[in-house]
């Protein structure tokens, strides 16, 4: 990974907003399925059961969706973490190189 191509502060902002919108989406999805249930409580006919089955089929995907949203943020957080690791290793290498070429001027 080329760390020069990571703008870590902007990426962090993207992650924060991503988490916030994902929370909003999670809340909305829960409310949507609660509202579907309320609708069916007010619509009791022979069609209610088949409608409920369709809602349940959709609802079963919500866990995956929520988990995927968390994973996107997690990948981006790993990118930042790597950026800092690489940056830190560059500093260590630079210091080491500095030590390696240190010249003791006292002999002169």
């Amino acid at each position, binding site marked *: 990974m080329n760390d020069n191509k*990571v703008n870590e502060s902007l*990426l962090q902002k993207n992650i924060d907003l991503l988490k916030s*919108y994902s929370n909003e989406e999670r809340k909305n999805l829960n409310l949507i399925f609660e509202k579907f249930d309320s609708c069916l409580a007010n619509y009791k*006919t*022979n069609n209610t059961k088949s409608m409920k089955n369709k809602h349940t089929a959709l609802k079963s995907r919500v866990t*995956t969706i929520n988990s*995927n949203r968390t994973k996107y943020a997690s*990948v981006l957080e790993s990118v930042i973490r790597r950026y800092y690791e690489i940056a830190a290793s560059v500093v260590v290498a630079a210091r080491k190189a500095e030590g390696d070429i240190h010249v003791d001027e006292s002999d002169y």
Partner: protein
Amino acid sequence: MIVDINIKQLGSLVTELTELINECDEAELNIFNQLKEACVNWQDGNSVEFEGKMKNEKKYTQNFLGAIQKNKDALRFAYDEYKAIGNKLYANLEKKSAIIKAVDTCISNANDVIYELDRAERGFYYYELTLINNQRSNMYTVRDNLKTMKSKLNELYKKIENAEARIATKVSKLESSMTFPEFDFSLDGRNG
């Protein structure tokens, strides 16, 4: 089949559902905008692959939300089918024949009374004659009201049966399963 619908409440709930779906749509749009921006702020081989996967995720998300919309539309369709009837509807369609038969019996009884009143002796005093004529007239009104009631009942039953058949067709077209694969991505290049 029992039909028990709080039509007014269903209409309000479908409106609330529409608002929630719109909000969810906006949240999802924002999620993918942030992911798109993230791929500008992070650029390497991994980000290219990540961006490609995000395009797929967006497609699945749009399909999912589209399916939610269609389910909501089916409920809106049910509301539209019944809204002209009133605020609430309760009907036991299994008792349809028994109820129509009961009304038919009342109509038949009213006809019998009218027949008897028509055959009644007219040589009474004015007071009795007026009384018989009034009763006869009342009985005609009762019988006509019963006929109107029967016709309205038949119309209502037909309307419910047709509406439920149309709603069933709409529901049968909704997706029964929805694919949304688990997101798999690794920065170490072991992407699924």
